[in-house]
């Protein structure tokens, strides 16, 4: 397989050299006319969706970054941290509100779960 690849590369290089010499020794209009057959046909026949194309290029094409958006809006580092703190507080309030809506049994289960988590965190920190 390796020898096949090497042989193929040798052929490619030989073609590159031959073609480059042709470009040097012929008028621009002549070589470009032939080159355009390759270029135009591949450009005109390309039919990929945006998603397929980005997957092929292994690039992300959708993202949302609130912190950098704030940077864009002219926020300083400190203002950014304040925004982040507000986000956390907002989430905490939402959770409190949701907790109020729970039934007695669900509340007991949640308290038990939180306590078991706390115990495991304390245990881990002691071990470390």
């Amino acid at each position: 397989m390796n020898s096949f690849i090497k042989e193929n590369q040798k052929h490619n290089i030989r073609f590159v050299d031959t073609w480059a010499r042709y470009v040097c020794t012929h008028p621009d209009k002549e070589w470009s006319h032939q080159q355009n057959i390759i270029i135009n046909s591949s450009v005109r026949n390309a039919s990929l969706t945006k998603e397929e194309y980005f997957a092929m290029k292994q690039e992300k094409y959708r993202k949302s970054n609130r912190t950098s958006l704030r940077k864009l809006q002219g926020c300083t580092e400190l203002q950014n941290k304040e925004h982040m703190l507000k986000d956390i507080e907002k989430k905490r309030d939402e959770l409190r509100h949701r907790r109020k809506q729970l039934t007695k049994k669900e509340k007991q289960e949640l308290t038990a779960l939180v306590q078991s988590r706390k115990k495991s965190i304390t245990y881990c920190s002691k071990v470390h």
Partner: protein
Amino acid sequence: MKFDTKGIIVLDRELSDLDRFTLEFTTVLEKHVSYVIVSGYVSILFGRARASEDIDIIIPKIGFPSFQKVYRELKKNSWYCLNAEKDSDVFDYLQENLPIRFANQGKVIPNIELKQAKNRFDDLALQKTVRVKLSEGELIISHLELQIAFKEAVLKSPKDREDARHLRTVAEGYLDEPLIQLYKEELHEFFYKRKPKT
């Protein structure tokens, strides 16, 4: 193909779809910001027998107001950004050194891959440029020595090595070989031996 020592190359080539596509984009871009074309399209422009689905263009770092002007005019001229629609979202990509892609409405290929300069070699490409005169306009490309060195010392894929080989042959006698070697050493140092920041 006529190589001028003053950084001008005259190409009397028959224009391809890719050439016209690039000229249309740069005509809008150059009204607002300087630019330089790099990588694969440079060798295609000089006759390499292959196509490309994207054109790589580097621009200097610009602020949001300047970007808004460029973006607005591109949209007015039927271009769209493949990454996002809102100008602030698109600019966000550039701010994080991510490339953004532009294509004609309803198409994905070909597209322009636009990046902000992010290292000294990008800055160098923007400073040392070559004007290529075509029958329907002009294109600004990076000087060929840097392109060859980058392909041989950094990218190194068979396709890139062939691109460099083609450029070496068609621009023989015009190229500054010691400069290519110097760039290759510097690029190698920068991309492969650079110590991580502590």
